[in-house]
């Protein structure tokens, strides 16, 4: 079941001048939300923003009926949302997309930059299911590392930074954790990173799931704008995805 409802902004937590976390209160009991799913936000007050903006769900607090969205400023829509303050109303269509499929007993999550957004809630669900996880985060520098405390509580955190200000210096693809055995790898981040991790997984015969970010209009499967080429033809990122097994994607 999908919903189109208003949320109230509880907090707009600024992480860097271009990265922020919106904590939103749902006025009713939150419906079932799967990790990896996303919302479509109605952006108000910006003349040039016409369509909703698809943003992945960073965290879910079922007890308090709150969700968190990690947002990076990339254009006029996300700049407008940056201005939201406590008490503001935000209309969302949610929850959208397929979400992650859990396989195996020991998994690796790899996140790059703000693309790592859906991994936090995924870690919570993995922990509930007693699945052992490692999370490898790649980011620019220590200032761009968000939700570190939560990652540590839920999983084994490994970090690479481009400048070496935290964790290993360099990119995720060179991190030694990749030498361990895993039943599945889940990767969210910039496309070149997801392709490199997918290639690594392929060589070791490990199933690899990625979360795709495609331009969307409706988010509910009817406009056919967000298609991705798969082995079974064009599929809609918003309903068949955004999580895809890379062996099914033409471009991976």
């Amino acid at each position, binding site marked *: 079941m999908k*919903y189109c409802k208003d949320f109230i902004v509880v907090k707009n937590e600024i992480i860097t001048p271009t990265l922020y976390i919106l904590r939103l209160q749902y006025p009713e009991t939150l419906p079932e939300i799967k990790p990896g799913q996303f919302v479509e936000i109605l952006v108000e007050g910006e003349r040039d923003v016409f369509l909703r903006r698809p943003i992945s769900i960073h965290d879910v607090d079922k007890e308090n009926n709150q969700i968190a969205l990690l947002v990076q400023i990339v254009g006029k829509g996300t700049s407008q949302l940056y201005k939201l303050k406590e008490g503001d109303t935000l209309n969302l269509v949610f929850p959208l997309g397929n979400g992650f499929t859990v396989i195996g007993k020991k998994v690796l999550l790899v996140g790059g930059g703000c693309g790592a957004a859906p991994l936090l809630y995924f870690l919570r669900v993995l922990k509930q299911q007693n699945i052992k996880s490692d999370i490898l985060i790649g980011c620019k520098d220590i200032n761009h590392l968000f939700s570190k405390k939560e990652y540590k509580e839920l999983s084994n955190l490994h970090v690479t930074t481009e400048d070496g200000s935290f964790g290993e210096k360099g990119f995720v693809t060179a991190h030694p954790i990749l030498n361990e055995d895993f039943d599945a790898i889940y990767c969210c981040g910039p496309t070149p990173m997801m392709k490199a991790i997918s290639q690594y997984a392929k060589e070791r015969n490990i199933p690899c799931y990625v979360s795709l970010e495609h331009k969307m209009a409706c988010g509910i499967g009817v406009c056919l704008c967000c298609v991705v080429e798969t082995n079974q033809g064009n599929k809609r990122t918003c309903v068949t995805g955004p999580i895809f097994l890379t062996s099914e994607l033409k471009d991976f």
Partner: protein
Amino acid sequence: MNTSNPLEVKIKDMILRNPVMTASGTFGYGYDFEDFLSLESLGGIVVKGTTGSERQGNPYPRMAETPSGMLNAVGLQNKGVDYFSNKIYPKIKDKKTNIVVNVSGSTIEEYVEVAAKINSLENIPAIELNISCPNVKEGGMAFGTSKEMAFRVVSAVRQVYGKTLIVKLSPNVTNIVEIAKAAEDAGADSLSLINTLLGMAVDAEKREPLLSTITGGLSGPAVKPVALRCVWQVAKQTKLPIIGMGGIMNAQDAIEFILVGATAIEVGTANFINPSITEEIVKGMEDYLQRHNIKHISEIRGVI
């Protein structure tokens, strides 16, 4: 006609409980919207453009946001008429609303084949013949931009299609009345307009087009003034009932189309912004009639 229902209208033999329909390609096959509204509250739904065989559509990117609107270049991605008849029709045939199939093709033979197959589906009261898609290489808009071609394709489909035949017109012409008259002369029962306006969008930083096909179809509030003008011109010069569309975002927009001569309206791009907008438009139209003490919507049809 049931005059106790102030919004009930008729398109040839198809009775609509209200003038609000959904535009092809913006509402799937209806069931995707059932979380947000009741299909029974709508006058009708027009399902995704259906062709003779499966089409993969155009490569990604197929969409670009533009001021007060969007461009699309989907290119009629669909699984073909047989898949529709065997797999989708059984799922939607008992929905209590008018289900109209948008029929598309590359050749006259393809339009005829699809129309004939849809004709045999009992619970489909009408087809909307799409002679105006700007996003396919062959056919599509080519049939809707020449009066001779429009006449030929509509005549051919009329031979095999016995129920309500709606012809969807393109605004990308010098004289839309000429095409409308050709469709009327060829036996169309109704005209729907407008399809999208041919446009393009450019990324100045990357110095490249935003769509894989370079050009695409513009929709949304940006096109409403063009759509109103087209509906007004065609309504004045043909006798057929008109289904108006182009940038309708609320009940006031819908009423504007009725005032310039439309019998019914279709809501398209607005479904992407607010998935329950069509139901809200029905309520807004009811309120409008009450507020102005109008007994039936036909009283204000074409008064401009």
